[in-house]
Each structure stands twice: as structure tokens, then as C-alpha cells.
């Protein structure tokens, strides 16, 4: 299985779709968009693997076609209602062995990063974690030319390098891909696609089947006791304004100030990895290579020094305002506006200025936007 059989280059590009209670993870849709591009370059088709249970799932399958799938492998069984590593591995490996896709992509979510390595180990093929880009390219190795390989591009080593990983001799080539780094494809309800219902045979003892997927009790030794999904998720990706705090915030309590600024401006609270690691704020808020990649209209970095891993997750923001008491902090090298000062003083000034402007509109005294700032002249004069 590990080596390529037949003409593997004629085989499809797959996305293993993640869904919970009929809601598809955004990263799965983003991956369908990229899978279409890759498949276009390779002159092959896009397959989507959809696993779950319930009547809503059929609509999901149709929606996947609208987002770019040519074939949806639809695997429905009551025992597959919730994600569990072993049965899902069994499903995905069975389908891969039967259809031999050349590329299989997963979202780099907790689910995708639980499932994909187990599948790769079963198939003894390569897997690259947490990619931020995928391309098609060639490679020469020991005099052999390998055409149309998947370049799996990811940050490594704490974000200090970007590595291009290939898997020249093994199929399928597999990767998990970070949420939010690929463009969500438009929905096209007129697209045609096949939905193939994959038969699932569920028996107490393992058996071999000629078609579809066989699951036995041995696949279900892990049981879900409960799953708690908090209502509100932090929507960093969709935020127009992100106000992030780092080490300079100083404490869990200090984040109240960051939160107040975010609330005042109608933004979402973000954080650096260091602030999350310190336990001041939940991981959902983390911006950077190991968190969420954001592209808001305005990014305000408060007390964030600006490690490579953080900057890579926010440097595409339309405008960046950095507040830091260290004038040499690397964050200033990607910022459009820099304020060297104590964030505990600067943030209240920002809040006050915004509230005043909001109420007073254009009445407040201001120089032309194009003019450079004049720090000393007006110092202490206003209000």
C-alpha cells in the first residue's frame, strides 16, 4: 500500500471533512477550495470523505459538492455519530486502500491531528502537520525525477523557519492544514458531483468485506462520555478589529484592560502564545502560527514583543498599532503605528480618545491626517 500502484498521478485529491452535528468545520471547506486548485493542476478530481450519522448529513454532502467536491464518499452509521479515533481511522484507511487517492488533506484541528497520524501510521505513509501552504512541484532525488509532488509547507522550529516537506516515494501524500490560511471557496449550487453511499458493516468480531467499511467491537473500546461545546466561540478570524495582549500585560487581571479596549472598539481579544502559556487567557484567543492567523482591518498589539511565530499570524493585517515600552521590540518592524510607552497608561488614553471622538465626531481638534505627529507641542494641553 505504501508505494504507488498503477499510475498514481491519475488519482484524486481528497479532503477528509470534519463535521459535528451536521456543521462542517470551516477548515474543511477551505481545504476543498485548495484541493480544487491542486486537482486542476494535476488534471484529476476532488474527493471528499464525509463521516457521521443523522439525516442532516445528506444535506452536508450536497453542500460539499457546491464547495468543490466531485465525489463525496458518504459514510453514515449511528455508531459514527461522534468522532472517535479508531473507527474513523478504520473508515478512512479502508477508503484510501480501495480508491488510492494521491493526496489526502485534513484540517489541523484537534480532531484532524488525532485522526491523520493514526491513518498515516496504519498506511505507513508520510504526513506533515499543520501546513500553512500546499503546492505542486517536482523533485530530484538520487538521479530520479519525481514529477507533481505535493509540497507541504509549514513553519517549524518555533516558527523560525519555513520548511517544505515532500513524500516522494509514498502514497497517499498526506497533510493537516491550519485553519484560516486558505481561502474559503464560493458556494456554487449548480456544480455537479456524485454522492457515493459507502456501506458500513458493523459486527462484534472483525470480518473482511468486499466493499465498503467493516467495523467491529475492537474499534469501539474508547467511548465518548460527554462533549461540551461552549456556545460562544472566539471569532478571531472574522474580526474586523483585534486587540491582543502579550507578556507586557503582566497578569490575568491586566487582560481586563485589553478586553475593555476591545469592547470599546467593537473588536475581539487576541493574545500571544506567551500570554496563553502563562495561563492569563484561553488558547482560543491565541494569534500566531500555533494559534489563529488573522487579517483584520486593525490589529492592536499591547505588550507583545513580536516573535516570528506571532508576527506570522498577524502581519497581513491592514493596519497594525503596536504599544510596547521597549522601543527595540521586533513588533515595531511590522507595525504601521508605534507607541513606545506603558500600555497601562496608553490603553486608557485610547479608550478615552475613542469615546470622545465617538461622541464629538469631527469637532475635536486634529491636524491633517497626512501631517506627521507633533508629540511635544500639544503635550498635556488637551482636556
Amino acid at each position, binding site marked *: 500500500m505504501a508505494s504507488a500502484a498503477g499510475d498514481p498521478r491519475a488519482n484524486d485529491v481528497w479532503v477528509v471533512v470534519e463535521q459535528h452535528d451536521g456543521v462542517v468545520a470551516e477548515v474543511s471547506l477551505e481545504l476543498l477550495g485548495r484541493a480544487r486548485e491542486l486537482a486542476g493542476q494535476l488534471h484529476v478530481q476532488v474527493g471528499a470523505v464525509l463521516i457521521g450519522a443523522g439525516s442532516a448529513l445528506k444535506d452536508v454532502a450536497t453542500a460539499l459538492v457546491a464547495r468543490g467536491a466531485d465525489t463525496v464518499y458518504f459514510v453514515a452509521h449511528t455508531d459514527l455519530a461522534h468522532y472517535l*479515533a479508531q473507527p474513523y481511522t478504520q473508515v478512512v484507511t479502508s477508503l484510501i486502500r480501495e480508491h488510492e487517492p494521491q493526496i489526502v488533506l485534513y484540517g489541523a*484541528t*484537534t480532531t484532524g*491531528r*488525532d485522526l491523520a*497520524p*493514526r491513518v*498515516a*501510521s*496504519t498506511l505507513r*505513509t*508520510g*504526513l506533515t*502537520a499543520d501546513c500553512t501552504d500546499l503546492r505542486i512541484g517536482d523533485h530530484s532525488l538520487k538521479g530520479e525525477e519525481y514529477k507533481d509532488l505535493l509540497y507541504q509547507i509549514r513553519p*517549524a*522550529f*518555533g*516558527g*523560525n*523557519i*519555513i*520548511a*517544505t*516537506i515532500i*513524500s516522494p516515494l*509514498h502514497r497517499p501524500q498526506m497533510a493537516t492544514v491550519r485553519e484560516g490560511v486558505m481561502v474559503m471557496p464560493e458556494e456554487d449550487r449548480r456544480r455537479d458531483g456524485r454522492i457515493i453511499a459507502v456501506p458500513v458493516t458493523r459486527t462484534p468480531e472483525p470480518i473482511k468485506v468486499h466493499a465498503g467499511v467493516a467495523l467491529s467491537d475492537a474499534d469501539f*473500546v*474508547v*467511548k*465518548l*462520555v*460527554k*462533549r461540551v*461545546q461552549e456556545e460562544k*466561540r472566539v471569532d478571531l478570524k472574522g474580526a474586523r478589529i483585534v486587540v491582543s495582549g502579550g507578556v507586557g500585560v503582566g497578569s490575568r487581571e491586566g487582560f481586563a484592560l485589553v478586553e475593555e479596549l476591545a469592547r470599546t472598539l*467593537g473588536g475581539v481579544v487576541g493574545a500571544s502564545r506567551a500570554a496563553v502559556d502563562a495561563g492569563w487567557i484561553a488558547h*482560543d484567543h491565541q494569534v500566531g502560527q*500555533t494559534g489563529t492567523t488573522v487579517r483584520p482591518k*486593525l490589529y492592536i498589539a499591547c505588550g507583545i514583543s513580536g516573535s516570528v511565530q506571532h508576527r506570522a499570524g498577524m502581519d497581513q493585517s*491592514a*493596519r497594525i498599532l503596536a504599544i510596547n515600552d521597549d522601543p527595540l521590540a521586533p513588533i515595531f518592524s*511590522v*507595525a*504601521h*503605528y*508605534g*507607541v*513606545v510607552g506603558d500600555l497601562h*497608561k496608553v490603553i486608557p*488614553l*485610547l479608550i*478615552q*480618545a475613542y469615546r*470622545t*471622538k465617538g461622541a464629538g465626531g469631527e469637532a475635536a481638534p*486634529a491636524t491633517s491626517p497626512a501631517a506627521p*505627529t507633533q*508629540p511635544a507641542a*500639544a503635550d498635556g494641553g*488637551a482636556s
Partner: protein
Amino acid sequence: MPQLRIVVLVKQVPDTANVTGEAMKEDGTINRSALPAVFNPEDLNALEEALKLKDRHDARVTVLTMGPPAAVQVLRESLYRGADEVILLTDKAFAGADTLATSYALSLAVRKLGGTDLVLCGRQAIDGDTAQVGPQTAEKLGYPQITCVSRVDKLVAPAEGGEAGSGAITATRSIEGGFETLTSTLPCLLTVTGEANDPRPPSVKLVMTYKGIAAEAMPEYDDSYLNPESDDAEVCMIGRDGKPVCRARVVQWDHEALAADREALGLRGSPTRVKEIESVVLAQSEARMVAPDEAGIAELVHELIEEHILG
């Protein structure tokens, strides 16, 4: 007699907070010796979880690492915290392994130990951040897995006589925007996150006990340590006086000790290759400096509103 057997997989990693270009080799792999080496943070959380279970149950904690001889340092640190037994997998044949080849070697070592009830490891290592070795080792062992564990809720130790499937573990894992609680029969593999606990510091008493071996043991890789003819390819650490210190043995296994398929190890056993690496260079911009005072900030806010950046 102990009862619950726990294997903890740990890794010595370069401190990725301080990487320089000199630390990178031509082939895209890391020259670890150019960086300070540390105990991978989440592996310390895994060890702590094992030691907490040992505090409550009659358990034997074995710590296993694969790496160069210098990786013995993380084994020492494990002994200082309360591990009962430590094993170093070291062999040139293991070099250049990706996650698949690494998990193969680790799984063979667990098998050589006669299997175990529980395997614990950190969710991911800070050098690669792949989070793949845990699930892949579980698969190779045929064990179920629970990854991203932020809390071990309950453990039922296997019944006397070690009947398969008699023990059970319940653990909670973090997922996007929530959590889920799972229960599994033993044996099982768990990957543990930094949320799970605060690792205990080394015990002064244990440091005193083991400090003899903390001295000069295993300076360089040397085949003479090993006796591949024997299934007993184990060595004691060599103390300062040149005599073996066997109170805490560092067992060292190479590929022959593991009866490994040479083709499945190291670079040869790794499907993935690093095609190229590049240093991250981010777009630089000239920041316009704004005075940290009322007037400066007011003007900035006004400008952002004018440009419809702020609403």
C-alpha cells in the same frame, strides 16, 4: 508487587526560543548541539501525570526516550522527579527519523518491556510541533488513544493477574471551543497538554540519591557500551569512579536490541523528506511613531476613524 505499569515517552528538544542560522544544517535538519537542550515541556506534564497516578496507585513508572547519548539528561531529570526506571534508545540507525520511524522504534521498545497498561507522552514537542508521535505509537502498539488530555478523571487499575481489558481510564481532552470526556479500557495511550498540571520540581532527596550518575556518564556515543550479541544489551551508567552505578540503571537499547527492521528506522524508514527550508523574513514596514500622550493618541484615533479603520 506493582501492578500498574506506566511508560512515559519523553524527548529532549532544542530550546526553540533561541534559534540561530548556525543551528541549521545544509540538509534542513537541525544541529541540536548548537542549541541548549531542554526537557520538552509537555513531556514534563506527561511525567507529572504518571507520578500523580503513582502517588495514588501502586505503579511503576518507566521513562523512555530516543535520542543521542546526551539525551540521557532528560532521563536523569525524570529520576530526580520520581521515575522508577529509565531507558535510552540510542543508535546511529535511529538518526534522521520522522514521526513514523520514531513511533516504530518507540513501539518496539514498549513491546520489549512486555507491553504496558498506560503510555503517556506530551501532546507535541516544541521543535516540530507535529503532535504525531503519540497517535502513531498508539497505532503501532494497537492501543487506543486519547490525545490533548487536559485532565485525567479516573483510573481503574487492572485486576490482579493482569487480565486484558480489566482496567480503564477516563480522561478529558480539550477541543475547539470546549472539551470532551472519553473512557477507554487499558492499555491505552494518552497525550497530555500543558493545561493538565504543574510539573513538580526535582526532589532534593532523589537528586542526592542519583547524583553519582549525574556526573560523567555516557560522554559520547560508543558501540562498546552495547553488547548486541546478547538480548541483554543494557548498560548501567558509569559513575565518576568508573564503576557502574546500578541503583538507577539507564538501560540503553540499539536497533538490534529492539530487533528492529533496519529499513523502517531513521531516515531510511521516513516517508517524509525536507525539500528545503527558509528562514522566516517578514515584511518590514516603517512604523510611524506616535507620542504616548493624550494629544498623540487622540490624533491617531481621529485618523483611524477618518480612514474608516475604526468605526
